[in-house]
């Protein structure tokens, strides 16, 4: 009996080791970092109001352009860090068939607008409000900033998770213009709303 119990103990110990290995490989993995299922798929359509509410913009209206869709918020530190690069990229690429769309994420449009007044805007960027986060949900946003790249045919071909710098944004657009599919890149952390 004693010997039998010892073998059962060995078995349990080994099972525990196996379980630990499996769990150790799973814990700590951020589910937001998995490859977006949207890459290679038609971009989810949206029709959203501008931050001032004076006009609406549909993704279908932008067909034929490379479209860069960025989700941002005034409470997001990484968004503040990447903002000058987004503005500069939009100023540079805006006149050449690339449209930047920045969508306020989980905040009132007046808060997004006040923040943009502070950090600056590009004349070529469309700044939009996303009531009920429907577009953010359609794009599978886990946290911000997240930036999606849509080719002229309306297919999602790239995604940057985290702070996007001008070099990465530009290199991604260059690749799309060459007909390549850049895929997903993780450049840094993302944030959720502080009260979530």
């Amino acid at each position, binding site marked *: 009996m004693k010997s*039998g119990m010892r073998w059962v103990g060995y078995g349990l110990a080994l099972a525990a080791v196996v379980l630990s290995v499996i769990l150790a490989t799973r814990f700590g993995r951020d589910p937001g970092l998995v490859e977006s299922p949207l890459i290679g798929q038609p971009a989810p359509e949206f029709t959203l109001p501008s931050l001032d509410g004076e006009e609406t913009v549909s993704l279908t209206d932008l067909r034929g352009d490379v479209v860069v869709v960025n989700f941002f918020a005034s409470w997001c530190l990484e968004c503040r860090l990447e903002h000058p690069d987004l503005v500069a990229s939009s100023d540079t690429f805006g006149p050449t068939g690339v449209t930047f769309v920045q969508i306020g994420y989980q905040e009132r449009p007046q808060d997004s607008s006040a923040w943009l007044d502070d950090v600056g805007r590009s004349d070529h960027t469309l700044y939009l409000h996303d009531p009920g986060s429907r577009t953010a949900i359609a794009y599978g946003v886990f946290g911000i900033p997240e930036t999606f790249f849509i080719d002229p045919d309306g297919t999602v071909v790239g995604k940057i998770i985290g702070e996007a710098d001008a070099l990465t944004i530009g290199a991604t657009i*260059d690749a799309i*213009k060459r007909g390549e599919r850049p895929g997903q890149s993780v450049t840094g952390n993302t944030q959720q709303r502080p009260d979530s």
Partner: protein
Amino acid sequence: MSERTRNLIYGGLIVALIAVVGFLIATNPTEADRVSRLGASIMCPVCQGEAIIHSPSEMAREMMDLIEERVGQGATDQQIIDELTASYGQGILLDPPVSGPTLILWLAPAIALVAGIGAIVWWRRHPSDPGDPTAAPAGRTRTAVTALILIGSAAAVLVAVTSFLQDRDETALGVADLQVEDLDEVSNQTLEAVIAANLDHPQISGMRLALADRYREEGDYRSAFPHYFAVVESETSDAGQRVAALAGLAWITWDGNGEADTALGLLDRALEIQPGSVPVRFLEGRILHCSGQSDRSERVLSDLLQEPSLTVEWKQIVSDELAAVEAREVCA
């Protein structure tokens, strides 16, 4: 009919009625039931392993609103799940699908149960002491069991590690394509955007110079000019960068506008920063040659040729230019 029989019939009818009502409720859930059930099966994307129905986050609440709206619009449960997994992937489901790689998660408990029962049965049939069914198996069989456990454990570890590494590879997919290791692959527009976004960066002069040189080689002097000028003016530019920018400015001033004196003045400024600079002195000789000042060009190039530090390559370049000047050839 006895009272006992009547009571039994009544009791049976009540039980049957409850069963029918329960069945109807179970098979015809209200819209609220469906919303709750779906909300309990979807993981909140901004939380850790929590269903959206239980999460206080705004994102979870908005996803619940979306589900409620879709149910109200007549969407089936599967259509709603398909919509959310199309955006977030299968990982958004708290109960993984009973297919593909997650099938093992569903089968594992049953396999463990069968294996456990099998082990107990085997254990009881192979006692070390035939008279004592609870005693441990002995000798060779014991060794065989040990080996089986070890092999099984090793296989499980191997599967876990392989699966982990595969997942890591999938996560990294596409990242390498975005890494910019060679600026030659980057467009002028991208460099413009990087410069515009980093005007105050202490090392931006190097990128400006590279872009200006690229524009100059493409013959786009109008685009090259502001970058050369900014490098010359920037306090963060080093001496070499300033000299290179002045040389670039000198060339496009001569070649673009035909202003030889201005170009030579810019080269003089460069020589004040780096006296004796070989590329600057060569450029001076070349602009003099091209602007028809052959005698001065000859002097500058001859002096440069006497420079002991001149490399073999530069010696060849200067000699060729000097020969062209002496032959009074038209500047190429």
